[in-house]
């Protein structure tokens, strides 16, 4: 966890979550990964996007959890959903069927073209670290109309070359993704605790388009494993509003209390 910046009364993690939440528009259908994406999506639903449709890969469609789920299939998601469908249906009819506006993913490693690794660090057959694996991500990355990726920025996570491509962004850049025949447009934003990155056409290399308050360019460069570039205009991200912060903290407190933390 990041510690509060003494000059402001919010953390870098909170800035990241709030920035990600703002990208979700009211009425969108959003396929949500557990953890940070779920936190941001629920914050959006409790602030500016009350009709955001949250879809979890365990089957709940239109989930409206009062407390943050610990797992992707907590009872809270099932009890508050508009409907629950079986797992083959969620992937085959709803995602592959073209009904998902936004896929919202995390990752252990990401490269400059937005490809994601959640499988292994090191060689596949002799991994240094065995990560959980693909889950729903490869097809979310392929079939959601657009994809947001959310992860903390560090040189270990933002690497020049992935050890394993689990889920595809723009592959080697240029028209490489287009040639795969995927139905979704691919990742349109990476939201980190330092900044926002967006793909720059025609290469689709991710460049910094917004810098969070108090973050220097040097810090972003140091936290990126490739020579990162900045867009011609990379304004300062709007700081969190009081309402955003209050709602986020209440949401986290309810989750922590429910799951036996602090």
């Amino acid at each position: 966890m990041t510690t509060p910046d003494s000059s402001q009364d919010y953390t870098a993690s909170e800035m990241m979550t709030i920035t990600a939440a703002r990208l979700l528009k009211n009425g969108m259908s959003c396929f949500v990964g557990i953890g940070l994406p779920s936190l941001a999506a629920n914050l959006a639903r409790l602030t500016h996007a009350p009709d955001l449709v949250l879809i979890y890969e365990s089957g709940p469609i239109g989930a409206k959890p009062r407390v943050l789920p610990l797992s992707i299939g907590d009872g809270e998601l099932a009890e508050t959903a508009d409907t629950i469908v079986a797992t083959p249906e969620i992937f085959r009819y709803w995602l592959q069927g073209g009904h998902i506006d936004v896929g919202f993913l995390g990752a252990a490693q990401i490269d400059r073209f937005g490809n994601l690794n959640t499988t292994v660090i090191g060689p596949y057959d002799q991994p240094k670290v065995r990560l959980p694996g693909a889950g729903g991500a490869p097809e979310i990355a392929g079939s959601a109309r657009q994809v947001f990726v959310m992860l903390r920025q560090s040189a270990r996570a933002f690497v020049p070359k992935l050890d394993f491509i689990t889920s595809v962004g723009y592959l080697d850049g240029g028209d490489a993704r287009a040639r795969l025949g995927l139905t979704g447009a691919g990742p349109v934003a990476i939201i980190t605790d330092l900044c926002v990155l967006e793909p720059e056409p025609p290469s689709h290399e991710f460049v910094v388009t917004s810098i969070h308050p108090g973050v220097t360019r040097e810090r972003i460069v140091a936290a990126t494993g490739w020579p990162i570039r900045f867009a011609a205009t990379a304004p300062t991200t709007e700081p969190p509003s009081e309402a955003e912060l209050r709602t986020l903290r209440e949401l986290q407190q309810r989750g922590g209390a429910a799951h036996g933390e602090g």
Partner: protein
Amino acid sequence: MAERMSLREAISGYVTDGATVAMEGFTHLIPFAAGYEVIRQRRRDLTLIRMTPDVIYDQLIGAGCARRLIFSWGGNPGVGSLHRLRDAVEHGWPQPLELLEHSHAGLASAYVAGAEHLPFAVLRGYAGSDLPRYNDDIRFIRCPFTDEELAAVRAVQPDVTIIHAQKADRKGNVLLWGILGVQKEAALAARHTIVTVEEIVDDLGAWPNAALLPAWIVSAICEVPGGAHPSYAQGYYERDNRFYQAWDAIARDRQTFQAWLQRHVLDTADYAEFSRVLGETQAVAGAEGTAAP
């Protein structure tokens, strides 16, 4: 036709060494009691199939029951790693574990093909991913109508599928509700299906199209109240998130894991005794203010 029997009888009758076994339930209704019984009967060389191996397969892998794992997401949901799974993959302990790894969409589709008795399923998936390079059961084919390239995944057809459900009636018809995962597909894909249930009732009181497995496709019904703990059974009990969190520390260390397994699973006669011993452990942990399950 569904035969009512004890869990011990069902596992000894249907789960043999070297069998391919699917224990399904997506976060919800995970058949933990059946997993403990497989460990207790010291089954070996199993091919285990599950979309999310979860703590249930962490236990089976750590206990040395598995030779091969077919899966699509292998973490402790909301907590982190499955340390026994990682130890088997990274260090071959207690024995090497062969992985056959899918995405959720891919493995769910493989179950659908199994239920349909087709050799494979087609999906728009895996494009650009490295997964097909390491899993020969993922190939690419051309659509005969549009010439589009699509993924094909080999069907999974378990020897035995084990699921947990809320209720069965006295004939053995099964009712489950809430998050359904791939239980129905896994049951229809298998040669035999064992169902553990919270309770057996006179009348299911189900809507005509409620999620139900008719008695004649079920091999064995076992009444095992609480048998999905620490996952949950909607309408009966909630997910024990504290157990999942506490599992991280137990499973991280080989000796701690083995001691837990010995005390709770290997030294207990059945699930009722397991529950009593677990209750004692949890009471002590509660009194000490620690998080051990």
